[in-house]
């Protein structure tokens, strides 16, 4: 946990604050944020990230395109990615799974669920 740098990607500033607050409460202190997929990719060029939490519906570059882009880049093939979104239709979840998401949470989430899923993804 000590050297884990998490990137939280969400277009809603409120959601970013809530996610960051929840992560800090769970003991994850090193968290950076991005407002969409494009912004996240730009930040990842500058900072090494070990875990990504991403929303789906975002302007500029949505979460699914972001995940697909990451998975197509050699260095991020096995990067842990957790999708946190309002999309709860089964077909969407299957699509996210196929794109390479490691786990999936539907908003609104509880802090326990977020913590549990991060631990599950990290445990592989």
């Amino acid at each position, binding site marked *: 946990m000590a050297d884990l740098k998490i990137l939280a990607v*969400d277009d809603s500033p409120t959601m970013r604050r809530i996610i960051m607050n929840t992560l800090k409460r769970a003991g994850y202190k090193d968290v950076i944020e991005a407002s969409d997929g494009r912004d996240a990719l730009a930040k990842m060029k500058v900072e090494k990230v070990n875990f990504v939490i991403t929303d789906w*519906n975002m302007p500029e570059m*949505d979460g699914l395109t972001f995940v697909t882009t990451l998975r197509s880049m050699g260095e991020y093939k096995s990067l842990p990615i957790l999708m946190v979104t309002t999309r709860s239709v089964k077909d969407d979840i*299957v699509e996210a799974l196929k794109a390479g998401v490691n786990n*999936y*949470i*539907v*908003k*609104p989430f509880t802090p326990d669920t977020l913590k549990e899923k991060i631990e599950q993804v990290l445990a592989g």
Partner: protein
Amino acid sequence: MSENQPLQYRIQEEISELAASVNEIVTKFRDLQNPLKESSEKVPKATKQLDKISEQTEAATHQMLDRVEKIVQQVEDSKKGLDEIKVCTKDGRTDDISALADDLIEKADITCNDAYTIIDALQFQDITSQQMNHAASLLEDIEVRLQSIMGALKGQPSDETHDEKRRDRKTRVYDPHADLFDKKTDQLAIDDMFARKG
């Protein structure tokens, strides 16, 4: 008969022009049917979405108010506890001070958890904002269709009006199914899907 012929021709000409006009009007009305039908279908959808926003905002606000009321009560109780500690300190009752301090620590923990619950409940903002974007997008579509009808009545090509309106639009990103309480797939089913993937 020959004198009547030009008149007959004129009448025939007038009637065929009138028929052509009626035909044109009928075609225009047929063209208007689709945008009108689409608009009339989108109005109830937008209304339903706005009602949902109102209901869910109210439910979330109540959840938060409940917690705020609990926090206020705990702060009031803590103030009383601090007053008691002051009295105990004055009287030199150290054992009572320790018990009161433990009680205050417990109350502070509960207050903290209640405050976190409020933070978590604020997720409703993201969900209702997506619902509002959905409703706004439906209303914008209705506006474009109505503009297209107005344009058609004025004899303007409908594509021109559509393009003009779309250029001015804000990009709206939303999940049409976003809901605070109704998740189409629950977390256990999602976990199962990911577990099966291995």
